[in-house]
């Protein structure tokens, strides 16, 4: 029975690897492109249309279709039909006058999602509504839960299996707990992968089972975490249920697999320098699994069979110091890389979660230190009262560890200050397209303060436009600031540039380009541009 189980687990692992190798490099290069919309982008209609249509360069499958009304409220468009390359969407309500945004996100055959929006107006133009990014809290809760399950499986399950294989004398104590944790991990891993796909596409939870979602998920780096995690979980099960000769080696490989799985994706692993962060995440994850995994089996052993648990306690207390040192050292270095500046601890969501985690760690380390230096010696000597205290203390430690996992799973939603700093330096770009002229305007960096602007000018039908002069006019009527008007200089590569431009305030500005086509003809094109806070 056990041998059969072991055999099937090996097969499962082999199949998962084969699947990943087949799917990951098989990405097609072409993406679907929008060819036409009805109503056309920028159209002004006299009455509310009965339906909308989007035509793409290849057949697509819609993920999210939303209509943003002039007041900014959103209407999910759920009734649509596919006709070759065209998506026909029913309009469920009579639209009021004003400018609407038809926002679409589709996935093409290659699994690559593309999104965009078309503006049209009923009756007359109004200010384009701002479509706020709605947060899908159900999806977020599910993602968080999936992560928590995965962490429970990796740390408590695999770490527990390792502790049972290497530290425990009597391996039946705590086995049920460890197997339960492994099952949580086996559920959490694929669940997390699917949710990752949903999140990457911005699709709702209802689309969990669609192939596009899983195809997308398989293209993210998270697939390696899940794959390595599943292999490690399988090896941990093998060490518990498999032949005794495989127990210790498979538990050891599984423990290393935890570190490898965590190093394969995530904020910290993505940070530079990679040669430092990935090994640190590996060490951090492996150390957590070693320590956290041993807690529950030790507590259960102490409660049920104090006499046999003594050897377990002695071995753990001997090994724990270097492990915790590695854990703390790798954690501190990673935190410094991610947070960069101490103020970010308070000012960013990521930093606040880190502070919360550190507070929980403080409690955990205090309890662990008391266990190690005050309780371990009498407990090993056979003091039953101390042993009972220790069981209680370990129970609390496991609870704190779970809380820490919960906090760490919350990092999934908070970009680290390091990434925020990179994002802040990114330019903000808009594309303005009219019949007479079109322009790509980039403002670098895309936040308030000292910036540079660059503009690429073309005719409305993508032809060259040899402008005599280009002037950028930035205005923000609601701020009481006079429009900022700057002439641009033509640079060698054909773009028009403005240096030393200061944008005094963040928010939505109106960017207008006055393009002097000939002595007597000026073309003015404009569009709103969102400037981030500094």
């Amino acid at each position, binding site marked *: 029975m056990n041998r059969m189980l072991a055999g099937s687990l090996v097969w499962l692992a082999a199949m998962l690897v084969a699947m990943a190798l087949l799917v990951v490099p098989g990405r097609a290069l072409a993406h679907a492109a929008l060819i036409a919309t009805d109503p056309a982008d920028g159209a002004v209609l006299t009455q509310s249309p009965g339906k909308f249509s989007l035509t793409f360069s290849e057949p697509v499958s819609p993920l999210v279709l939303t209509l943003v009304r002039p007041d900014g409220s959103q209407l999910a468009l759920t009734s649509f039909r596919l006709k070759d390359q065209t998506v026909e969407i029913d309009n469920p309500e009579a639209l009021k006058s004003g400018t609407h945004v038809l926002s679409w996100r589709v996935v093409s055959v290659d699994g690559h999602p593309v999104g965009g929006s078309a503006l049209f107006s009923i009756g007359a133009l109004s200010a384009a509504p701002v479509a706020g990014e709605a947060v899908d809290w159900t999806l977020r809760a599910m993602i968080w839960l999936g992560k928590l399950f995965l962490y429970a499986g990796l740390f408590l399950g695999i770490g527990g299996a390792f502790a049972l294989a290497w530290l425990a004398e009597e391996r039946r104590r705590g086995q049920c707990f460890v197997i339960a944790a492994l099952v949580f991990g086996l559920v959490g891993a694929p669940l997390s992968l699917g949710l990752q796909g949903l999140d990457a596409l911005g699709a709702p939870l209802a689309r969990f089972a669609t192939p596009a979602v899983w195809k997308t998920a398989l293209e993210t780096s998270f697939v390696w975490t899940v794959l390595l995690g599943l292999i490690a979980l399988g090896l941990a099960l093998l060490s518990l249920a498999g032949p005794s000769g495989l127990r210790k080696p498979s538990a050891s490989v599984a423990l290393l697999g935890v570190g490898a799985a965590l190093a394969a994706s995530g904020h910290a692993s993505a940070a530079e320098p990679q040669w430092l962060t990935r090994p640190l995440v590996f060490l951090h994850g492996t150390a957590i699994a070693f320590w956290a995994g041993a807690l529950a089996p030790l507590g259960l052993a102490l409660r049920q069979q104090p006499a046999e648990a003594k050897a377990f306690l002695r071995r753990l207390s001997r090994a724990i110091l270097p492990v915790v040192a590695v854990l703390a050292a790798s954690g501190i270095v990673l935190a410094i890389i991610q947070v960069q500046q101490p103020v970010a601890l308070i000012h960013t969501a990521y930093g606040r979660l880190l502070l919360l985690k550190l507070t929980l760690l403080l409690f955990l380390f205090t309890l662990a230190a008391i266990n190690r230096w005050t309780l371990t010696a009498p407990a090993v000597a056979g003091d039953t009262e101390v042993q009972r205290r220790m069981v209680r203390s370990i129970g609390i430690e496991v609870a704190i560890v779970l809380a820490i996992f919960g906090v760490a799973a919350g990092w999934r939603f908070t970009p680290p200050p390091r990434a925020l700093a990179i994002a802040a330096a990114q330019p903000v770009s808009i594309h303005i397209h009219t019949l007479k002229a079109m322009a790509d305007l980039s403002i670098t960096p895309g936040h308030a303060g000292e910036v540079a602007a660059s503009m690429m000018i073309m005719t409305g039908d993508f032809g060259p436009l040899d402008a005599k002069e280009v002037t950028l006019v930035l205005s923000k009527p609601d701020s009481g600031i006079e429009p900022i008007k700057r002439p641009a200089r033509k640079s060698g590569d054909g773009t028009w540039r403005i240096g030393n431009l200061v944008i005094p305030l963040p928010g939505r500005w109106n960017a207008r380009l006055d393009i002097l086509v000939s002595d007597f003809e*000026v073309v003015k094109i404009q569009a709103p541009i969102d400037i981030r806070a500094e």
Partner: protein
Amino acid sequence: MNKYLLAAGALCALGTNAALAHITLETQEAAVGSTYKAVLRMPHGCEGKATTAVRVQIPEGVIAVKPMPKPGWTLQVKKGKYEKSYQLYGETLTTGVKEVDWSGGNLPDEFYDEFVFRASLAADLPAGQMLYFPVVQECGDAAERWIEIPAAGQDEDALETPAPGIKLLPKK
């Protein structure tokens, strides 16, 4: 009587207020198929600088243009093909003046001057609509371009540098 004069004066002052800082034509209405004397009024230079040249683009349908020379300014015209042919006093016109330039002058910012040309408005110009004469005002190396033409439905007052224009009246 005096009251009426005052009211008319106030109306004039208010009505032309927005246009005071812009380049305008003295006569703001003309019938199609008539002869029009265009008097361009230059209220100021370019942000304090003296005006050194005035260039006017002649729109399609404005034919047989004859500018008035100005002492101290070099007068030039650029001729070109009309988009179609026009009949004037039994003659068929296919080419003519497309641009009038007065250059080499010096009109300080604090002084006022007028630039004049005479032209025929073709009979088939659309009565009831506006006809615009884009003007480039040069002040040494600076320039003000009075060339903006309001888009359909756009308020002319919203433009920063509108082209001077006249309203076309029905043929008399």
